[in-house]
């Protein structure tokens, strides 16, 4: 069993719309760049984790290998909603920890095109329509919009409003400030899908999608891929000084699902599984939230980011509103959050996101983040939630000089 696992190479494509490429192109580009970045090749890989949501039936890992190197290694094609990319990273992490591999590559890739956050809606039926109960709720017609909403904008709006119900000092303004911050951060990130700042007023006055989230408080859909090459302790010691210098240690890799909560059957609970994952991650890494120099967390909607300040212990219990009001999560604040621009502005190609978070933290800890660099960053966290639900947290640590 490996003592610890390190990130040796990392890369991500710019998030954008790529109508002239397919998801194999995007995944291959990220994978090849991560291999080059780590100074290794496909023939050095002993395992592949491939995360993708929308083409998951196709065996994408194998398709990528057919483009960049078929060496017969095990491929794990994984799906876990918005946590997919992080689960791919953890799959490779586990293979190395188990001693089955000493080097492997994890890829998260997605091509969403112009797919919106809203579903396609019901299809018109031409046959005679007679109500018959079906499914686990004995439904006779689709209930979307009749018995509340199950679509993401409303679900995450409700998650935020639930926090507002339970805590003082949280409302539309605090949620809007989250979006103001992340859009401002994205201006410094050339890999972000959008690099445009919005004023607080512009965000509040923008088109309402699902109160309290206006359009710039909702993540866009886009295409992209990210990849990381992981290596065991002992293998890393055999590599060059330069490879060792740039390697970033995985202090914790944690995956949780949601424990039973009665209310979660009508409103997904994105809090408890995040709190559980954070507790385990801090224990494994042997650090506390105060020691994090930066955090990339799952801001699919502005409302979601606020909850996770509290869930991850970045603020006082119940103090997420005061935390954003104080400016603490801005890039010059106490705990910079989503300096990449976050999902709100960097973008959120579903299967890519979890791997992109690990890329961002790796790049920051290496001191290679360019204009968006957080000076002297030594420890960082990447957090994602996949509704359903899964929470993945990776804590990364800069190598001792």
């Amino acid at each position: 069993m490996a003592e610890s696992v390190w990130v040796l190479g990392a890369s991500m494509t710019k998030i954008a719309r790529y109508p002239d490429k397919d998801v194999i192109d995007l995944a291959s580009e990220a994978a090849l760049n991560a291999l080059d970045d780590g100074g290794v090749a496909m023939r050095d890989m002993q395992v592949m984790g491939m995360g993708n949501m929308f083409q998951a039936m196709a065996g994408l890992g194998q398709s990528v290998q057919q483009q960049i190197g078929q060496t017969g290694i095990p491929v794990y094609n994984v799906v876990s909603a918005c946590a997919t990319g992080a689960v791919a990273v953890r799959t490779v992490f586990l293979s190395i920890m188990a001693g089955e591999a000493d080097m492997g590559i994890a890829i998260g890739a997605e091509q969403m095109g112009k797919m919106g956050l809203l579903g396609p809606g019901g299809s018109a039926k031409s046959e005679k329509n007679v109500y018959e109960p079906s499914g686990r709720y004995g439904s006779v017609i689709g209930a979307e919009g009749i018995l509340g909403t199950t679509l993401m904008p409303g679900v995450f709006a409700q998650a935020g409003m639930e926090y507002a119900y339970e805590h003082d000092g949280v409302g539309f303004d605090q949620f809007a400030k989250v979006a103001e911050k992340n859009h401002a951060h994205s201006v410094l990130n050339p890999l972000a899908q959008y690099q445009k700042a919005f004023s607080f007023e512009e965000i509040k006055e923008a088109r309402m999608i699902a109160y309290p989230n206006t359009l710039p408080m909702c993540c866009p859909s886009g295409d992209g891929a990210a990849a990381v090459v992981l290596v065991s302790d002992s293998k890393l010691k055999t590599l060059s000084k330069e490879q060792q210098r740039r390697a970033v240690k995985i202090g914790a890799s944690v995956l949780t699902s949601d424990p039973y909560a009665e209310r979660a059957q009508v409103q997904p609970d994105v809090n408890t599984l995040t709190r559980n994952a954070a507790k385990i991650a801090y224990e494994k890494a042997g650090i506390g939230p105060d020691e994090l120099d930066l955090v990339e967390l799952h801001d699919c909607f502005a409302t979601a980011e606020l909850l996770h300040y509290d869930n991850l212990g970045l603020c006082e219990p119940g103090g997420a509103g005061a935390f954003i009001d104080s400016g603490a999560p801005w890039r010059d604040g106490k705990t910079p959050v989503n300096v990449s621009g976050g999902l709100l502005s960097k973008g959120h190609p579903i299967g890519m996101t979890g791997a992109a978070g690990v890329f961002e933290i790796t790049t920051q800890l290496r001191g290679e983040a360019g204009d968006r660099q957080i000076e002297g960053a030594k420890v960082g966290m990447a957090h994602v939630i996949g509704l359903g639900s899964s929470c993945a947290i990776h804590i990364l640590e800069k190598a001792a000089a």
Partner: protein
Amino acid sequence: MTGIVRRMGKQIPIVDYLVLGDAPHLTAHECKECKALYFDRRNACAQCGARTFGSRDLATSGVVRSFSIIHQAAPGVPVPYVSSIVDLDGGGSVKANLTKVEPDPEHVTLGMKVGLATFVAGTDDDGTEAIAFAFEPVA
């Protein structure tokens, strides 16, 4: 518990946990062991693993625990409308629309008291009405 259609004349509930009649209300599967409540068909209890359930009628009054005012919806859904999570008095939480209230944050408030109401959500080719439920403000 399953497969029983509570068809009332030419009306049918939109979901089987809505009971129609003189006093419309929601009913839940209740775990015999731990009393956890569920609206869906069950294989076992997610909290304790027990496999036997009874049924429990839920209160028709409660408070709004959370809401969102939906301005962009799936095709065919009129907007704006209010989606809400209601904690029912005496136990159980349910998701439903809030009606009889202006769909804006000045009128919809967290913690507001609401009561169950029913309405016709659709009619099939045999003239059977699908009856849905919503919550509306109560004094």
